[in-house]
């Protein structure tokens, strides 16, 4: 059913009893052309673009839990394309452009809100770095604005401008960036993929990858063996575990990242604000809650829960930036497992096994990449060739000496 104003009126008149489920509860067939492991944003987007753009219709998405139960339902919903390196910026800008057309594309309200993302600077060195980053963005055709202190004070009056250690001197603003409704992205892609014939199989965990003559022939799952022509892994924090089934070791460590939401408030924070003295970021959801987070906890973990000391640290950063936050009550917190790569940038690539494809290493920035990740991964799977904007995001880049290290932190995943 196509959603429209007309469909809302029509269903209202029949008591809203005739709405159909947004996707079928599919049972696995014995064989698919492509199996995607992981029913999160990236897996579902890959399935959608495979079926819609690249004409590969016989596709299954296997999800071990319920749809969108991983990081696509656990992030802070920020979308932006303000990266610096030429290996990243065209990719994320491609994603930003897909975001801008996504609601029309999916016929689904993903509540994209281009409210602007502003990253604050606190000293001259940071100002220089942001000018450089802004220029790098302009070179890729992406608008960036340097907002100086006086102008910023008019835009965002409630910041702690005169903090002794981290005075706020200004910020780098990308106006087109903003937020989107994370669950709706998963549901919208699932509905879109389903409409193009993709089988979405929930509660179906992959337990082994079967190989014959050096290529993948299928996967053992909790719902039995399923054969496939090509296997695509989009398992985020569990990428190392899934690829281990094919004897692949990855340049990935799984870390835990926490996020928080406060009680609902009247509209007060109009942008996404990122603190430059730490890693704190905050925005206000349409329900009114302030959604925020900061650094990863710093230790490897597969548990979807974090440490209280990190929670305290995040709150301290927030109150340093916005003193008024100290009066707001936190409603709940949660955590997700991040596939931290060795340079902080993702991997969309083939593997040493011919028909096995890999999509991982999203660190804590995977949500904004969802559309481009899906598109580029689908391109790779369908054509066996890398999409031009993802050409730097290769698995073998470390061996070749082409790490894409935005933070300049080196091969130390808990520092990215």
């Amino acid at each position, binding site marked *: 059913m196509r959603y429209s104003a007309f469909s809302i009126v029509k269903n209202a008149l029949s008591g809203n009893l005739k709405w159909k489920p947004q996707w079928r509860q599919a049972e696995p067939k014995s064989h698919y052309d492509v199996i995607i492991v992981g029913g999160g944003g990236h897996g579902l987007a890959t399935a959608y673009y495979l079926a819609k753009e690249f004409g590969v219709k016989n596709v299954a998405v296997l999800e071990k839990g319920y749809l969108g139960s991983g990081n696509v339902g656990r992030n802070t919903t920020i979308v932006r394309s303000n990266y610096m390196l030429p290996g990243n910026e065209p990719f994320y800008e491609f994603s930003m452009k897909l975001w801008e057309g996504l609601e029309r594309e999916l016929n689904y309200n993903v509540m994209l809100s281009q409210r602007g993302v502003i990253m604050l600077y606190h000293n001259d060195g940071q100002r220089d770095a942001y000018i450089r980053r802004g220029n790098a963005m302009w070179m890729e055709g992406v608008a960036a604005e340097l907002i100086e202190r006086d102008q910023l004070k008019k835009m965002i009056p409630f910041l702690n401008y005169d903090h002794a250690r981290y005075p706020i001197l200004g910020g780098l603003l990308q106006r087109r960036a903003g937020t989107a409704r994370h669950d709706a992205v998963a549901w919208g892609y699932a509905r879109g993929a389903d409409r193009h014939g993709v089988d979405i199989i929930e509660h179906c965990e992959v337990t082994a990858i079967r190989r014959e003559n050096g290529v993948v022939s299928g996967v053992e799952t909790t719902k039995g063996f399923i054969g496939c022509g090509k296997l695509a892994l989009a398992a985020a924090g569990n990428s190392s575990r899934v690829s281990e089934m094919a004897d692949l070791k990855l340049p990935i460590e799984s870390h835990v990242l926490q996020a928080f939401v406060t009680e609902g408030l009247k509209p007060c924070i109009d942008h996404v604000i990122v603190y430059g003295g730490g890693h704190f970021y905050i925005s206000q959801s349409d329900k009114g809650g302030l959604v925020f987070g900061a650094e990863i906890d710093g230790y*490897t973990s*597969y*548990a979807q829960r974090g440490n*209280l000391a990190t929670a305290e640290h995040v709150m301290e950063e927030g109150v340093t930036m916005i003193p008024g936050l100290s009066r707001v009550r936190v409603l709940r917190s949660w955590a997700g497992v991040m596939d931290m790569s060795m340079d902080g940038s993702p991997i969309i690539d083939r593997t040493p096994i011919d028909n096995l494809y890999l999509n991982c290493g999203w660190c804590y920035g995977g949500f904004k990449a969802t559309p481009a990740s899906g598109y580029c991964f689908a391109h790779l799977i369908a054509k066996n060739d890398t999409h031009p904007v993802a050409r730097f995001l290769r698995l073998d880049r470390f*061996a070749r000496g082409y790490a894409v290290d935005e933070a300049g932190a080196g091969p130390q995943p808990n520092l990215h």
Partner: protein
Amino acid sequence: MASLITCPHCGVRPKEEFAIRGDASLVRPAPTASDEAWHDYVYVRTNPRGRTLEHWQHVAGCRRFLVVERDTFTHDVHSVTDGAAFARENGR
């Protein structure tokens, strides 16, 4: 994550006194080892879900490097050994 770590030199201390360096199961290759061996050592991780060995430095205490054995899923800490003692025991 456990909130307390038992340092073999300083006793029970809060986890925030320690800095985490990373996987301690890796063995540094010889300087003349192949590029592949060095690549695997620097970039590739087993990333287990379960028991793991990690280098932790007690930066706000004795400043010794320690080897912490803990579980990445339950967050239990099983043992904490001094780094030098661990290396001797394992013939490194």
